[in-house]
């Protein structure tokens, strides 16, 4: 059974009447790394929000199915959704400056999801949090545990966010532009971290990005989204080397080329 199966998803915002997602079909296998690329306003973030359950339902009209392990998330009540959120589906946001609570110690935020979804004791939670922080490459986790977000650099913060999503070993990690707010060297580190996490623990990664080169570094397959619909999909290498859709070609042409020195 597929891990995630989106069938004919339509999302319309009631306040503006705009149809942000027009009939998206998408399948993900366990452990797969899939990239969803498109320009701003192409509907990629709305798709991710729909499947993470973050959309305020009173403001949108959603039709279709979002099957997570065979269960339709769109048909779930909020409390049913809460049982899945965090535990099976983790999310990493774009902006590590704002995605951590500024007044809570980093370690406590990493173990927060354990507090919500498990019956582990405080000591066990702490041990799991320290382990996760070590796995995402935060040096001296003991000390980082006691720090507040403003005491960490942007890259460290993003690692902490990943640790807080990974501490409970979800099956799917949704990453919404996880490297956009970081500088280039840190970007590369975070991408390779995500890759190694996915390979080591078999976590599927759903990467949303406007940057094809980021997707190419992390994902084996890619979907290109334009104006709310998927216009091309396939293996990342194939799409890169032999783009069939006109929009994909333009997107690839937009990647800055390295200058050759003679």
């Amino acid at each position, binding site marked *: 059974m597929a891990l995630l199966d989106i069938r004919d998803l339509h999302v319309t915002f009631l306040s503006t009447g705009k149809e942000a997602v027009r009939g998206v079909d998408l399948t993900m296998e366990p452990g797969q790394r899939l990239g969803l690329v498109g320009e701003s306003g192409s509907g990629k973030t709305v798709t991710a929000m729909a499947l993470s359950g*973050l959309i305020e339902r009173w403001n949108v009209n959603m039709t279709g199915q979002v099957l997570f392990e065979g269960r339709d998330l769109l048909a779930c009540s909020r409390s049913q959704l809460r049982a899945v959120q965090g535990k099976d589906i983790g999310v990493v*946001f774009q902006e590590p400056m704002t*995605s951590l*609570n*500024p007044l809570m110690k980093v370690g406590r935020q990493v173990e*927060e999801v354990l507090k919500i979804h498990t019956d582990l004791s405080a000591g066990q939670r702490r041990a799991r949090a320290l382990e996760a922080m070590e796995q995402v490459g935060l040096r001296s986790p003991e000390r980082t545990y006691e720090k507040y977000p403003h005491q960490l650099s942007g890259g460290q913060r993003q690692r902490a966010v990943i640790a*807080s999503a990974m501490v409970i070993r979800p099956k799917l990690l949704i990453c919404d532009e996880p490297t956009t707010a970081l500088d280039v060297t840190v970007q590369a580190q975070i991408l390779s971290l995500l890759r190694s996490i996915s390979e080591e623990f078999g976590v599927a990664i759903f990467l949303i990005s406007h940057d094809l080169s980021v997707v190419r570094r992390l994902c084996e397959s890619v979907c290109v989204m334009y104006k709310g619909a998927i216009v091309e999909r396939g293996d990342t290498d194939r799409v890169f080397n032999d783009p069939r859709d006109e929009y994909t070609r333009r997107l690839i042409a937009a990647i800055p080329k390295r200058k050759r020195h003679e």
Partner: protein
Amino acid sequence: MKIKHNKNFTAGAIITAFMLAVILIGMVWTPYDPNAMSGAERMLAPCPSHPLGTDNFGRDILSRVVEGAGATFVIAAATVAIGLAAGLVVGGLTGYYGGWLDEVVMRFNDAVAAFPSILLALVLIALFGSGKYNIILALGLLFIPSFARVVRSEVARQKSLDYVAGARLMGAGDMRILFLHILPNIIPVLLPSVAIGFNNAVLAEASMSYLSVGVQPPDASLGRMLNEAQGYLLTAPWYALSAGVAIILLVLGFGLLSEGMGGEYGAA
């Protein structure tokens, strides 16, 4: 925070600490019994044995100011506590959930805030009866809207930040998000308005007691003393001055503290 470079904060802290010390000492010791009358010592001007003089019943004004400041302080603190506690709940829920609940509660809030507060307080006092505890209740109820509004707007702002979305995506329940994640983050904005609210409460208590519906004689209260002193404004100006200066110091101290805090967080 660089509080030591902030003159407003420092001055406010010193004045408030001084007033708090005086009030605390006054709870266990005053130079004279504040209510002890002495026919022989009526309307004495400030002198070594009575530093602030005596009033028309021969009571020591210093002792009464200390006692009255204590009463005013306790009433103001209790008022703010009621207003803040209820304001946190009302503002937190309306700000977090929004929608029709928010509209209804906030329009009611506006309606309450539109009345002159002293007038409303007098209406409530007419319902409850006068006295120290009824004053606390009446003023506390009147202070809910202003706190609720501050809390609401700040919760609504924090609600849209990523860390709240993140907590929600972890499967955290609404109450956990609201009280564990959001409320601590609105404290910086809340503190100055607590200080301002305290000032308003001091002034409101003084006004109510001045109008003789607050603290009842023979107990001392700063507003009550001002009322009694106005008959002797020309013959014994130190009487009104002592009570008035005490009110000013209380209000000024907290006002400067609030100003200092606002500056700190505003600059950050």
